[in-house]
């Protein structure tokens, strides 16, 4: 469909790699005539790695192509949400993330030199994972890659090829052809299905001539990660119009390894090169931390932010995920966190389609559900960005009125928006949702992610795992149901003496039966087991209807 990019530069190893993980090795494919692979993933960022891990663990052969040989330096994402960690846990990668990450709950919001108020994320008790951890993105990616290496050793069919840059994609009726450039020259591969995880600038999107509509925020943010041993507390500090004048807003947030994320809002008309001069950056940081604090600049960068998405995430046999499909401003930590949820939503569907157990239109539900998720994230991060960087004099007037009132009036604190932190989305209205049952709690209605809870030998989400599950609470049901070629395993639970299960899944009801999808979202629920109803709901969740 598209011609190869004009100048076929040879992909070379990027200079600043935090970790070299998949050095270039010549593949036999390069000598062959366009070998066919069931799934090719383009891009080994966090989303491409998670997709490869999810598919590979389920036995689906997956080839990942990346134009580098590892993870670039510089942190980008630092806040990883509970749902992203739960998904990584299903993928076997969350342990080291939790161990390395910094857990935080407290936040402080300042205006000028005034502390307006403090907030506590107050995580609900009875979850395996905290609301958030802070972890540098390269570690997050490294832990995903470590897990890939471990499952590869156990036979998972995952292959990652470094220095393999995709230069053209040609969609055909039953496959996609890819032109790939390597240090040994070009070659061709074919994919039954292509997952494009090639980031916000997505060359694949461009090659297919697809749009990426949305809003650009006319503001620049200077990110400085500094290493220091100062004992600031492990809290999120956010300043509107800080007295130290280093930016129109500022953020200070702890990461592992004594590194702190500092973020200054610089405005639109700036000289980016001059602002990145170390002396200039230091002047701003000094003003914030005080001249006596010693620190080392680990990484600096200037960003502008966009909120936008593709109109459709599925384009025939090419499926977009992560930043390639949607981009948000970082206020609210919804970028990588939502990309991980894309993977969670997509991989089980793709596996069933590849195995012929579900029709291709099951993948249209990926599009519908994750577009819904992206819209929710875009709405939230657009609102946060508008509050942080008011666009008109009157919006600034109201913003500052909110901040003034917030110092004394609790109601105004609920309006202050320095980022509504990422929470998973509920697929209300999805075509995969089956019947709901009155009287059961709203938070676990069809489409919602199953909330974690303590169970006899650990945690509910760990007990659920990654297949279709019939979760019964004080209700009878067969241990295994086979229908439409799929096996549904029963997870028998009792809410007796378990207040968390009672509140999250039963409410006032004495018993309930839930059909859970492989991505741990509720498909349907009933007051008791009924074989016909479960078979019908399963058919619906497989898009067989």
């Amino acid at each position, binding site marked *: 469909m598209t011609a190869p990019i004009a100048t076929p530069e040879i992909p070379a190893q990027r200079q600043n790699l935090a970790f070299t993980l998949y050095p270039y090795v010549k593949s036999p494919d390069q000598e062959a005539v366009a070998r066919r692979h069931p799934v090719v993933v383009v891009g080994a960022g966090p989303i491409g790695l998670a997709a490869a891990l999810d598919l590979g663990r389920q036995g689906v052969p997956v080839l990942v192509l990346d134009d580098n040989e590892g993870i670039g330096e510089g942190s980008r994402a630092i806040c990883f949400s509970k749902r992203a960690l739960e998904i990584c846990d299903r993928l076997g990668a969350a342990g080291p993330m939790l161990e390395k990450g910094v857990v935080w709950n407290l936040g402080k919001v300042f205006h000028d030199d005034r502390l307006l108020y403090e907030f506590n994320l107050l995580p609900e008790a009875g979850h395996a994972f905290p609301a958030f951890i802070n972890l540098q993105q390269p570690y997050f990616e490294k832990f995903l890659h470590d897990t890939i290496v471990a499952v590869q050793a156990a036979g998972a069919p995952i292959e990652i090829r470094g220095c393999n840059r995709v230069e053209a994609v040609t969609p055909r009726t039953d496959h996609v052809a890819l032109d790939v450039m390597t240090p040994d020259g070009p070659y061709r591969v074919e994919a039954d299905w292509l997952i494009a995880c090639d980031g916000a600038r997505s060359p694949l999107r461009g090659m297919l001539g697809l749009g990426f509509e949305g809003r650009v925020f006319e503001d620049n943010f200077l990110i400085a990660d500094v290493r220091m041993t100062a004992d600031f507390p492990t809290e999120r500090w956010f300043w509107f119009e800080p007295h130290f004048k280093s930016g129109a807003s500022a953020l200070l947030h702890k990461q592992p390894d004594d590194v702190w994320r500092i973020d200054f809002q610089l405005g639109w008309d700036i000289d980016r090169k001059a602002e990145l001069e170390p002396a200039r950056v230091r002047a701003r940081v000094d003003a914030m931390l005080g001249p006596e604090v010693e620190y080392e600049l680990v990484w600096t960068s200037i960003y502008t932010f966009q909120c936008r998405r593709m109109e459709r995430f599925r384009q025939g046999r090419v499926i977009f995920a992560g930043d390639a499909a949607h981009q948000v401003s970082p206020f609210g930590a919804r970028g990588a966190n939502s990309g991980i949820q894309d993977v969670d939503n997509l991989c089980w569907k793709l596996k069933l389609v590849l195995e012929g157990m579900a029709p291709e239109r099951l993948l249209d539900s990926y599009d*519908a559900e994750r577009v819904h998720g992206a819209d929710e994230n875009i709405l939230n991060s657009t609102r946060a960005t508008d509050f942080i960087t008011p666009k008109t004099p009157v919006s600034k007037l109201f913003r500052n009125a909110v901040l003034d009132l917030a110092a004394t009036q609790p109601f105004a604190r609920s309006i202050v928006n320095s980022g509504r932190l990422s929470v998973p989305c509920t697929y209300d209205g999805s*075509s995969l949702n089956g019947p709901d049952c009155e009287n059961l709690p709203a938070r676990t209605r069809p489409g919602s992610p199953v909330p974690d809870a303590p169970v006899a030998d650990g945690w509910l989400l760990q007990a659920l795992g990654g297949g279709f599950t019939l979760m019964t609470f004080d209700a009878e049901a067969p241990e295994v149901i086979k229908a439409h070629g799929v096996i549904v395993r029963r997870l028998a639970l009792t809410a007796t003496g378990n207040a968390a299960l009672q509140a999250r899944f039963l409410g006032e009801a004495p018993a309930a039966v839930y059909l859970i999808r492989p991505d741990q979202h509720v498909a349907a629920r009933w007051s008791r087991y009924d074989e016909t109803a479960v078979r019908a709901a399963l058919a619906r969740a497989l898009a067989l209807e």
Partner: protein
Amino acid sequence: MTKPLSGPRWPARWRWSEPMLTLTPNLSNPDESYARLIAAHEELSEAESHAMNARLVLILMNHIGDERVLAAAMAVARPER
């Protein structure tokens, strides 16, 4: 599924009901209240007055609370375009 979100979404149960914004006379002492509003701005600079008005809107908005009433009030207040 759902359409791209533009404005806030209304819960279904609100959609067909009449907004309950009071536009009939409701002040117990209109002259007194109006004089108080004007007096509250005395000796404020224009910028201070605008800031005060903004705070006042937010306080009253919170007092009203109901999204439908607020939306109806904004629609009445906004000049036609």
